[in-house]
């Protein structure tokens, strides 16, 4: 399992592997929205929590189809299915690798984008905290969606359609944490719910995803 994680990370960091592109996309959303919406500081400050979370979500989404599709195309997934590692483990490790190269990376750069979006100072801590608590759910739910669409040629867009509604609760609670945090209000409840969704998804969805992959391979 460890070697699978190492390989996936290595692939992500090699040329064309996609590391940094999720980040770049997050950055671009944070740049484009002010361009589209206009430069007014107060409006931006108000929408910053929501837009930053939507941006993180879209950035996650864009790299989802790499999770399994590449291994499916070159036959690695067949070979992994006949290997001693259980498919649930494969899914979990691949979701973890995805989180490390997107979710974690997004979380770490998010304060910079908070500045671009004029986020009130009190919100920065909660932005990082909510992303840390919420992005693992994004990766696991995404891995489930990727598992459903692994047999479909260029399933990327179908994947978006399937996964985005599943992201709704995470998005709402995540953005709510940041919004309340920025206003200095109490954030306990949404943060707890966010963590709950993450815990539940991480515990259960790998099984559903592994089942979907087995169905798609046959």
């Amino acid at each position: 399992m460890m070697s699978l994680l190492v390989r996936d990370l290595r692939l992500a960091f090699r040329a064309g592997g996609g590391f940094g592109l999720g980040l770049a996309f997050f950055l671009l959303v944070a740049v484009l929205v002010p361009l589209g919406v206009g430069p007014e500081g107060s409006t931006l400050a108000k929408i910053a929590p929501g837009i930053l979370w939507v941006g993180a979500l879209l950035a996650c989404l864009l790299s989802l189809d790499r999770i399994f599709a590449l291994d499916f195309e070159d036959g690695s997934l067949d070979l992994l299915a006949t290997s001693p590692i259980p498919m649930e483990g494969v899914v979990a490790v691949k979701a973890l690798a995805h989180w490390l190269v997107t979710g974690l990376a997004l979380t770490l750069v998010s304060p910079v984008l908070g500045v671009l979006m004029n986020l009130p100072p009190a919100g920065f801590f909660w932005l990082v905290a909510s992303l840390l608590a919420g992005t693992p759910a994004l990766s696991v739910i995404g891995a489930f969606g990727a598992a459903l669409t692994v047999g479909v040629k260029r399933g990327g867009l179908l994947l978006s359609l399937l996964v985005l509604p599943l992201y709704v609760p995470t998005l709402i609670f995540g953005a709510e944490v940041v919004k309340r945090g920025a206003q200095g209000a109490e954030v306990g409840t949404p943060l707890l719910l966010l963590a709950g969704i993450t815990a539940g998804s991480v515990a259960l969805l790998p099984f559903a995803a592994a089942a979907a992959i087995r169905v798609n391979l046959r």
Partner: protein
Amino acid sequence: MSIWEYANPKKFMQTSAWALPWVAGLAAVSLGVGLVWGFFLTPDDYKQGSTVKIIFLHVPSAMMAINAWVMMLVASLIWLIRRHHVSALAAKAAAPVGLTFTAIALVTGAFWGQPMWGTWWAWDPRLTAFLILALFYLGYIALWEAVENPDTAADLTAVLCMVGSVFAVLSRYAVKFWNQGLHQDSTIMKVGEKDPIAPAYYLPLIVCIAGFVLLFVALVLARTRTEIRARRLQALLARERLA
């Protein structure tokens, strides 16, 4: 005789061939009666004016939009557990019907909201939850369309339906948490208590609800028959190619 016999395609085809005209006829009658009654023969509300007539479309379609998803969930579970092809195909057949009902609820709600709330659309939790439900329907249908092998598609969509149901419920709570909302609470089921809906509206509403239920059943039966035939057609063509 076990209820599972109807999961046999042949048995299903026979029974549904017999039942379909009756259900369809009843649906047409009750919908016709209910809607005509509701549209022509009900008085205007003192507060909402003639817009109250929208209720006869809005409430039944909203209820059936949810019930259709529940039916798909049950059918998906039956498929996953007992692997009866008819139930997988029934779930597939129900999805476009559910989507249409969701769309009707949204459209009538929007036309109602314009005079009542002064806006076509508000991010009210119930409305938002419905929009998300429509997205789940879209994703479910798209997955059926995208996967070629019918058994694979049945398995994948069943799993999606289960996971999606959990997240749809979660979304409902999340959305409620996020915004308290304008939309009135459900009163239709509280008849016994204070009877808040005047009988002048209540009776035609019941007829319309019955009509929508029957319409749903009729459409699902007819569409399931089509899906079964399509499945068999595909198999026969494949056999022809191989032979």
